[in-house]
């Protein structure tokens, strides 16, 4: 128990911490493979990114080694996207993630650790295109 408590404490110390920005270009081939994978045949997605593509373009969470000391595995709890500008083939996107919150919940089936990440996506013109809030769960 003391071990898990200290994992939560160590992770809570990371709230507000930002990861290194990652840059990626929206490539037509990548977009094509992504829309084939999700099975969405809308011709609009040959030029423009569908709603969840940004997560595939640039990671929306930071790697936190100590989180893996908690529980057995990860689950995705949820994702909230806010969209400001369309994302198109050729756009160069910079993604910057941060740890927004960390907390533990104990229920009937045991304890869960929640890590909330926020990611800002900015394009080559310095315009914010989207923001993502993701809930990663250790169980």
């Amino acid at each position: 128990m003391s071990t898990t408590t200290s994992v939560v404490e160590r992770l809570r110390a990371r709230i507000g911490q930002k990861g290194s920005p990652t840059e990626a270009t929206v490539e037509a081939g990548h977009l094509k493979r992504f829309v084939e994978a999700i099975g969405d045949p809308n011709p609009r997605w040959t030029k423009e990114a569908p709603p969840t593509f940004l997560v595939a373009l640039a990671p929306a969470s930071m790697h936190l080694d100590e989180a893996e000391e908690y529980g057995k595995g990860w689950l995705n709890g949820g994702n909230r996207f806010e969209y400001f500008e369309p994302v198109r083939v050729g756009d160069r996107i910079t993604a910057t993630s941060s740890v927004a919150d960390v907390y533990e919940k104990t229920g009937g089936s045991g304890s869960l650790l929640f890590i909330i990440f926020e990611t800002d996506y900015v394009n080559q013109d310095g315009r914010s295109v989207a923001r993502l809030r993701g809930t990663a769960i250790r169980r």
Partner: protein
Amino acid sequence: MTVQVGQELPELVKHPTTRQLVQYAGSSGDFYEIHYDQVFAKSVALPGVILHGLLKAAFLGQLVTDWLGDRGTLKTFDVSYRGLDVPGKPYRCRGRVTKVEGDDIELEVWGEDPDGQRTTLGTATVAMRS
């Protein structure tokens, strides 16, 4: 077509396969083994390989963008994963209009497993072109 509260979105039924999970893993860069390695998935107390939450979000995204077309713009899309879904079973995506305020529309969307359990719940807001 006028958008009204209570209006249902045309249903979208997806038939996810393990092959699709591998395609999604490859194209999204999410190589967590619970989505393609049965032995690994069972070792972390899962029933077997499960769908990526974000793949279910993509299905619900398609539900919304198919319905919306070029009539407006998606502003927010919020999805919460409440249950596990496995490949080989149909996944029904449904939604309805919950609020209309001028050009701003709010939708409730959800994904159902074959037992009718809502394993994914979401909301979307769209701005219609005036």
